[in-house]
């Protein structure tokens, strides 16, 4: 049963497309806004240049979908109001996975269907690539996001299957190598 929210007002002046290299400055701006929201600003260690190298070089480490609001008048330029950043991953019992790393819509453009449209775009990409799954993480206090995911039929695996996320940072990696 589909419970994906489709009853929203479509924003007529917004287009959804694959990101281009020139979008990186704007994407970086939105990444910083998301970090502020998640209280993880101290963890942002990349720049627009990093994004250009990692997303638009020979080896593409990620892909990005953006929501662009057209310029309202001749004097304005269009700007990005949201993005969804993903990469290909693998679930060895099932197969290809589209992993969503970031989903963000700027503060004053919420509740207008932008996130739903970004997500639907990503899902089309996933289905075209024969992915068996989409996967992502969300912070447990982010009730708005959790509600959005539950509405579309996503399952909280931490609760259902008891998954914990483990991480080894650079210092620990170096230390582990000396074991």
């Amino acid at each position, binding site marked *: 049963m589909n419970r994906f929210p489709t009853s929203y007002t479509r924003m007529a002046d917004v287009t959804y497309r694959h990101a281009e290299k020139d979008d990186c400055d704007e994407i970086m701006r939105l990444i910083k806004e998301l970090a502020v929201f998640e209280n993880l600003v101290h963890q942002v260690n990349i720049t627009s240049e990093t994004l250009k190298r990692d997303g638009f070089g020979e080896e593409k480490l990620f892909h990005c979908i953006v929501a662009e609001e057209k310029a309202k008048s001749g004097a304005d330029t269009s700007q990005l109001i949201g993005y969804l950043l993903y990469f290909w991953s693998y679930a060895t019992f099932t*197969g290809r996975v589209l992993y969503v790393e970031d989903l963000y819509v700027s503060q004053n453009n919420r509740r207008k269907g932008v996130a739903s449209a970004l997500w639907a*775009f990503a899902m089309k990409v996933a289905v075209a690539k024969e992915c068996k799954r989409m996967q992502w993480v969300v912070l447990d206090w982010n009730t708005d996001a959790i509600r959005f995911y539950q509405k579309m039929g996503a399952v909280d695996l931490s609760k259902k299957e008891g998954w914990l996320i483990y991480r080894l940072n650079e210092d620990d990696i170096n230390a*582990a190598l000396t074991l």
Partner: protein
Amino acid sequence: MSRVSIMADYIIRDARLEDCGEIFLMLKELQEHLKDMDHMTLEEESLKNDGFGEDKFFQCIVAEQKPSGDVKPALVGYLLYCWSYSTSAGRMMVVQDFYVRQTYRTQGTGSALWAHATKVALEKGCREVEWIVHDWNVQAIKFYKKLGAVDMSKGEGWLVYRLDVNAMRSVVATDTVNKQ
């Protein structure tokens, strides 16, 4: 190019296309060990296409017995990982599968696989290696803590979410915005 690390009675090396049969067998052993929580639908052909085709969805390293006489050395463990991306830290390594065959445990094989993987991660400029583990898998958790890894679920409150292919198709079918 095949990177080789030598230790004890095993070598650690990059997996090759011809390893897929044995990796697939170990994958099924791991599925059993994890109590079949994920239903196995992957086929050996997909493993070959997805890891050794034009688009590589994963990378794999294996622990292989040192050759002895004419007997083809067996694989005794594997570590399968993906390159991922964090908008805070850049390139990351995500370990998807880590498995050592029953009779070869507590001999340093697991540590050797992890040491090889983390070396590759550092060489590629990764600042982090990440993975998930079942909260009941006490043995694995003890191993990870010994490596110095931190439980981020506890530390930062992350929950793992997933949308399966039926739900995805359902959403795409009813999407109106992207059909413009």
